[in-house]
């Protein structure tokens, strides 16, 4: 009927129409129908065109296009990363339940997608997270405790984004994609691309829902227009709060890349080795001047959107149960054990480390002090203004009025 790509799109439409109906029907009924869950599973276990290396059962099979040297150190390191990140993520949830945090944004289930990408970054690379990238923060050398202030309402994160080369968490969906592209344009202008080990690139993170935002589109348009060394790393965790990915797109998200003339790859986001290998390849493409590249990490949000969310209103436990079988950490543990790369002592030691981290995480949280009013007025500008200094002085004077009787003006 129509030329190549359009023909493609017919196929896409057909298949996604099915899915759409399956999912669509659910919109009207209180709970998803069984066949929907099955659809979900099918999508999962056989995500079309997906690059994978380590099966859910822990069987490793190299991928011709993405060679990776699977040493014990590497696998044990990745396993440790994922365990520690999951551990403090769970502690974050617990701290919120106990009223120590106002909210927590769990990454449960996305450990492989994040550690695989994060470990593909070199110190000189730059990363632009959304708000769920605790695993990337970990790989950038950000102390997890520096995340706590955000969720306790003390600050906006206390790591130094310039030094860690890990930008502040960005909450407005899509904004960081454009910021990352601009940073990568700067890397190109600085002439730091090439074959040297010091070559730089940028990776930015966003979700399946974010792909609908104009900023993500414009990011890809600008990235392609300026050959920016940036990897667009989309964690498709199947949900945007209560909206399944089918609400955002008819076609697999990695296919968006072709529209901008950049490579797009879908990887099993629960397979840390595949995520690492593909991310390394993508970052190298960018470092050597062949950017941008798009990666869709096909994974699943195992927990609620945030601690304020109630997923039982919109998705079946069965769906989550099915994904449990695809756990990103379990398969690595199985692989380590079966291959004899690691013994019980190693697993125990990681467990101990994790508990230690969790304890430090918790202690730091409860010890956090609320800053004084000066924080409200600080760093609004690099070069402050008289108007703001006056406002701060007026408010200080006002507070002094309560100094004697100790009361402080709290909103009623």
């Amino acid at each position, binding site marked *: 009927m129509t030329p190549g790509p359009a023909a493609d799109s017919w196929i896409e439409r057909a298949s996604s129409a099915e899915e759409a109906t399956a999912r*669509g029907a*659910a*919109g*009207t009924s*209180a709970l998803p129908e069984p066949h929907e869950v099955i659809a979900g599973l099918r999508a999962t276990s056989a995500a079309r065109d997906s690059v994978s290396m380590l099966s859910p059962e822990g069987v490793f099979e190299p991928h011709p296009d993405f060679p990776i040297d699977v040493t014990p150190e590497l696998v044990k390191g990745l396993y440790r990363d994922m365990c520690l990140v999951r551990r403090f993520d769970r502690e974050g949830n617990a701290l919120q339940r106990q009223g120590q945090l*106002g*909210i927590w944004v769990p990454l449960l289930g996305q450990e492989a997608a994040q550690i695989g990408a994060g470990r593909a970054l070199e110190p000189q690379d730059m990363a632009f997270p959304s*708000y769920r990238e605790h695993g990337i923060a970990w790989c950038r050398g950000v102390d997890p405790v520096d995340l706590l*202030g*955000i*969720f*306790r*309402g*003390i*600050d*906006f994160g206390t790591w130094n984004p310039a030094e860690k080369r890990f930008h502040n968490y960005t*909450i*407005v*969906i*899509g904004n960081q994609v454009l910021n990352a592209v601009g940073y990568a344009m700067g890397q190109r202008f600085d002439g730091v691309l090439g074959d040297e080990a010091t070559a730089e690139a940028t990776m930015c993170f966003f979700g399946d*829902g*974010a792909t*609908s*935002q*104009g*900023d993500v589109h414009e990011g890809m348009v600008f990235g392609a227009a300026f050959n920016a060394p940036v990897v667009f790393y989309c964690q498709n965790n199947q949900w*945007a*709060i*209560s*909206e399944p990915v089918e*609400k*955002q797109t008819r076609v697999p998200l990695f296919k968006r890349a072709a529209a901008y003339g950049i490579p797009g790859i879908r990887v099993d986001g629960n397979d840390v080795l595949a995520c690492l290998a593909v991310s390394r390849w993508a970052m190298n493409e960018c470092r050597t001047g062949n950017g941008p590249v798009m990666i869709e990490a096909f994974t699943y949000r195992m927990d609620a959107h945030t601690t*304020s*969310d109630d997923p039982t*209103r*919109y998705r079946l436990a069965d769906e989550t149960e099915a994904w449990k079988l695809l756990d990103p950490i379990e398969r690595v543990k199985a692989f380590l054990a079966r291959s004899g790369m690691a013994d019980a002592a190693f697993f125990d030691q990681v467990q101990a480390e994790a508990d230690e981290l969790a304890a430090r995480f918790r202690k730091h949280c409860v010890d956090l002090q*609320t*800053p004084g*009013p000066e*924080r*409200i*007025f600080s760093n*609004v500008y690099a070069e402050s203004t008289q*108007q*703001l200094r006056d*406002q701060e002085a007026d*408010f200080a004077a*006002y*507070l002094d*009025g*309560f100094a004697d009787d100790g*009361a*402080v*003006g*709290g*909103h*009623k």
Partner: protein
Amino acid sequence: MSATTLTLAKALNTALRDSMAENNKVLVMGEDVGKLGGVFRITDGLQKDFGEHRVMDTPLAESGIVGTAVGLALRGYRPVVEIQFDGFVFPGFDQIISQVAKVTYRSQGAWKMPMVIRIPFGGGIGAVEHHSESPESFFCHIAGLKVVACANASDGYHMLRQAIACDDPVVFFEPKRRYWQKGEVETATAPTDTFRTVLRRAGTDCTVVSYGPSMAPVLAAGEAAATEGRSLELFDLRSLSPLDLDPIVESVRHTGHLVVVSEAPRETSITSEISARVTELAFHSLQAPVIRVAGFDTPYPPSRLEEMFLPSLDRVLEAVDRSLAY
């Protein structure tokens, strides 16, 4: 039917339900408004009862939500758009200012733009960045829009009904930290014009005007002042644009003092406009300049500091004292 006690959230939900039942051109659209019923549950149960075409979970894009709502309005629908949080309306700002606000003017009335843009606004819920802002002033500067804010359950119901019935675009601000506050709602009463300033407490010493989330500390200040022998006259604006200033000017003529209270940063804000206009209209009656109790000219601070940022009972009373002592 007689009055029932509802939370503001439930009153808004009921207003949507009643409007949708009454007119099948009324649509609800936004992020997570379907099965989830919205992150604040304002649209709870509506999709189940009215179907997926009338309560639409949209893709995650505010310009898309507002821009397609414009087209639906041109087609004869009356879309009620939910913006999930105040800080997320800005991707849709261009469509609001360039299309929503101008279509009627551009077409010399050939098109109407019956659209409601619901925005939960304000702080006080201990949220993270972008979830506690007060962007109403931006919209008050845009000709072609009507901007209102409700402060209690009864107004929540009747003002939303009126907004949906209005043939002009209405930006509807909901004080998110009051969603769970209960109030009497008489849904049967014939609708009167609720987009007008309303007297909340009569008084003689000083006039205090506010809207939305800050009405609570203002009403509390009225109580507290009374116990200290100062009589405050309190008004709820309800309509932020256009402003209904006559009752306030009247009041100032006998009190001689005016305090304006809002969470929005002070500079070039709704409080600036009220101060300027009332001074123009009641210059000789004012015994002191209009005093503004507002947010600071900073981004919204980390939430543990918001109690200091938000206008409080104490800050209102201190402002009244300053005005009276002027």
